[in-house]
């Protein structure tokens, strides 16, 4: 296969070679659309325009704002936890409250912020625009999806106000502790959490259906799968993963709800809780762990794959160069997605499951490192001989490469079953997953917001504030999580409300905790700058020109910016090339948008390399 490639390499993008011999209309010709244009729902009242909107762009923004709002709560919870860890003398929190905050922080950040933001937020905003569709396939179902998410969030928040408070079972919700006395919120709290998750899954399934069908069936003419921007590939694959993985969470939640409310014994073994024999018998706690991680591991990639896709596009646009190895990037996204269903038990090396599973899951886990590494290589090779504009999206993308690389490499520690034994359940794990699926994707989110903000509002974000936000966030969060790995080496276990004097944990560990906490507070404060920037720039920001970054992908080429209902005016666009024709030799500009017909770019031609 590869030898064939090498020959063809010379001829790439040579499509205008004989343009002079034919008329413009001939080379621009595209067959008539076989299907009629999509029927759209046109809203007539304020309610259906702004609240129960069926326009994917609005739904995307609604999703994003709700997710970010919930995420801010998660951020505040993390501050409280960090203050408790660094300054236990203050007596800020009770142990129960600490564990409740740990749990809610984790669940909010993973599910209600990142998953909702990447798929619900960016998915809704970008899929129709980047694919050249008028809207999602089923706008009404899409609206229901958002409102199911809102209800899920409300149920989650309600758990703060019920007797016993929210659940403190840890975000993994392991039984038996999740529903037995001794764990905070083991009555109402956990039930509300489970109901909220079930609602989230139901809502997400409705949204996911839309994302998949829109990407597969409603693209513009000429938009083949391999012409789609990697953002769409990332979101699409993540949606497929989510539709296959969330059922495991649903199944686990349903069975645990019954264990808790009816007293069935799906997961609950015979046990003596607080001196009292419970009526459960025979249930398997490890079964829940398998179900949870069968969802939980793909979940990591549900967050990571859209981030991979978006960052590829940001790098390409702002480096004025095509993404290196587009096909490899697509294969890696699809391959990682498929492999992610075969690695789940690497979260369970020391869970008491059959230890012989360790061999299999260590091997699959390290195999998944290969496509992931290839993605990193391709990102950095994209920078090679590029024309790098150090805009804010570019800075965030570069920071993503560093943090993702760091977090990915520490994943090689934890994935390798032997190394995992001393490090599991220590702060090394906490540092690893925050670096790889907390900070890295969030940096992409920031990059993406700076990049697409003009598309949404028609105005630019303030650059100076953005730079402050960038440097504090990047350097600060690196300062939080890089040293935290070393706490893990010392052996400090995670989920400890207080570490006390310990014969082997020297006081300097407490000093490190204080340093980390101060860094966390500073990084948190920097997000206020970001919020201020977002809010004020919506009215006062510099007016953006159309397509401010000179990007190729379709979302920047709607007749109006910001795009109106139906996105494309009279006719949906026709696509003539992939999304990465940057710096094509011989072209007038260093970019050729996807919908520019060949006749307009005669002369652009790749020199033989």
């Amino acid at each position, binding site marked *: 296969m590869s030898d064939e490639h090498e020959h063809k390499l010379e*001829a*790439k*993008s*040579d*499509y205008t070679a004989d343009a002079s011999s034919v008329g413009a209309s001939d080379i621009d010709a*595209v*067959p008539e*659309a*076989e*299907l009629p244009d999509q029927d759209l729902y046109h809203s007539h009242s304020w309610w259906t325009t702004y609240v129960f909107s069926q326009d994917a762009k609005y739904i995307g923004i609604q999703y994003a704002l709700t997710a970010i709002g919930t995420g801010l709560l998660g951020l505040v919870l993390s501050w409280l936890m960090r203050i408790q860890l660094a300054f236990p003398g203050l007596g800020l929190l009770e142990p129960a409250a600490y564990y409740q905050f740990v749990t809610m922080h984790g669940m909010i950040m993973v599910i209600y912020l990142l998953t909702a933001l990447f798929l619900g937020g960016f998915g809704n905003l970008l899929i129709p625009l980047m694919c*050249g569709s008028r809207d999602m*396939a*089923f706008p009404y179902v899409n609206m229901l999806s958002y409102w199911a998410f809102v209800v899920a969030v409300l149920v989650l928040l309600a758990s703060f106000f019920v007797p016993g408070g929210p659940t403190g079972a840890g975000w993994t919700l392991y039984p038996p502790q999740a529903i037995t006395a001794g764990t905070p919120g083991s009555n109402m709290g956990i039930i509300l959490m489970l109901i909220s998750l079930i609602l989230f899954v139901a809502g997400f*399934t409705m949204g*996911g*259906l839309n994302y*998949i*069908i829109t990407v*597969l*069936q*409603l*693209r*513009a*003419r*000429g938009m*083949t*799968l*391999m*012409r789609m921007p990697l953002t769409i590939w990332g979101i699409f694959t993540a949606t497929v993963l989510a*539709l*296959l993985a969330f*059922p*495991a969470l*649903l*199944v686990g939640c*349903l*069975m645990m709800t*019954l264990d808790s409310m*009816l007293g*069935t*014994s*799906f997961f609950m073994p015979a046990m003596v809780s607080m001196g009292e024999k419970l009526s459960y*018998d*025979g*249930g*398997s706690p490890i*079964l829940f762990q398998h*179900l949870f991680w*069968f969802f939980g591991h793909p979940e990591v990639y549900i967050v990571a794959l859209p981030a991979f896709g978006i960052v590829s596009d940001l790098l390409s646009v702002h480096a004025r160069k*095509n993404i290196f190895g*587009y*096909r490899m990037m*697509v*294969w890696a996204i*699809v391959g990682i997605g498929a492999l992610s269903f075969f690695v789940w038990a690497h979260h369970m090396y020391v869970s008491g499951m059959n230890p012989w599973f360790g061999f299999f899951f260590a091997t699959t886990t390290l195999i998944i490192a290969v496509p992931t590494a290839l993605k990193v290589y391709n990102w950095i090779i994209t920078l090679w001989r590029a024309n790098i504009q150090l805009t804010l999206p570019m800075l965030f993308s570069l920071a993503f490469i560093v943090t993702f690389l760091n977090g990915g490499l520490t994943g090689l520690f934890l994935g390798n079953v032997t190394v995992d034994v001393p490090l599991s359940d220590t702060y090394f794990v906490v540092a690893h997953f925050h670096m790889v699926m907390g900070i890295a994707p969030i940096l992409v989110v920031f990059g993406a917001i700076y990049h697409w903000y003009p598309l949404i509002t028609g105005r630019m974000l303030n650059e100076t504030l953005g730079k402050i936000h960038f440097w504090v966030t990047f350097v600060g969060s690196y300062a939080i999580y890089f040293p935290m790995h070393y706490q893990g080496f010392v052996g400090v276990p995670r989920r400890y409300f207080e570490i006390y004097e310990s014969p082997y944990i020297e006081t300097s560990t407490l000093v490190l905790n204080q340093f980390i906490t101060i860094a966390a507070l500073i990084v948190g404060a920097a997000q206020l700058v970001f919020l201020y920037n977002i809010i004020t720039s919506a009215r006062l920001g510099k007016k953006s020109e159309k397509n401010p970054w000179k990007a190729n992908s379709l979302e920047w080429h709607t007749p109006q910016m910001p795009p109106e209902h139906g996105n494309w005016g009279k006719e949906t666009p026709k*696509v*003539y*090339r*992939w999304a*990465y024709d940057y710096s094509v030799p011989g072209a007038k500009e260093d970019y050729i948008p996807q919908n520019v017909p060949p006749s307009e770019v005669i002369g652009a031609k790749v020199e033989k390399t």
Partner: protein
Amino acid sequence: MSKSKGIIESLFEKPWEKDQIEIDNKHQGRTLNLSKYKVGLRTIMVVSTVIFSLFIVAYSDRMLVHDWRTMPEPWLLWLNTGVIILGSLIFHFTKLASDKNKNDKTKNGLYLVGFLAYSFLIGQLLAWYQLMSSGYYATTNVANAFFYLFTTLHGLHLIGGLYFWGRTTSKFLSKNSKAEDVKHSIELCAIYWHFLLVVWLVLFGLMLFT
């Protein structure tokens, strides 16, 4: 199936090459030659299949523990199975009738299908009643709990199906529309009915043989 092979094949295209560009420019922007509703239905069926498969895995795992007490199957379940098979068959014929634009046959078929579906649901509730009155509660043994869980989920799927059956039927009845107008909806509902039949047969078989 040739289409899904098409997706994998297309992953090897080089979109920047001249030959490929000429092919791609003629592309209609659609990957599968199906209506969006059909793709949607298939997606739902895949997700449901995953849910039921995971339950079956959990069932098989839990079954091995010492406290498992197999539950007797009430005779009513056999009757219900008959009803749901009949429902699926009649939906098939209704679909054929709507294909041929036979309005009356389609209408009667739709009524009958709805009647059978509701009968099935009521039958399942009666089976629950039968079990509970002989002391097989969800808490008595986890095998019973699985039975109630399976039947509930399957029933909820059917209720979801009945919503779309209701929409199709009322559309068909409204201002003299023809079988042609609801042909596609009937086809999709029929597929879903067959799917639920298969799910039920698998679940029932599982509980019967273990």
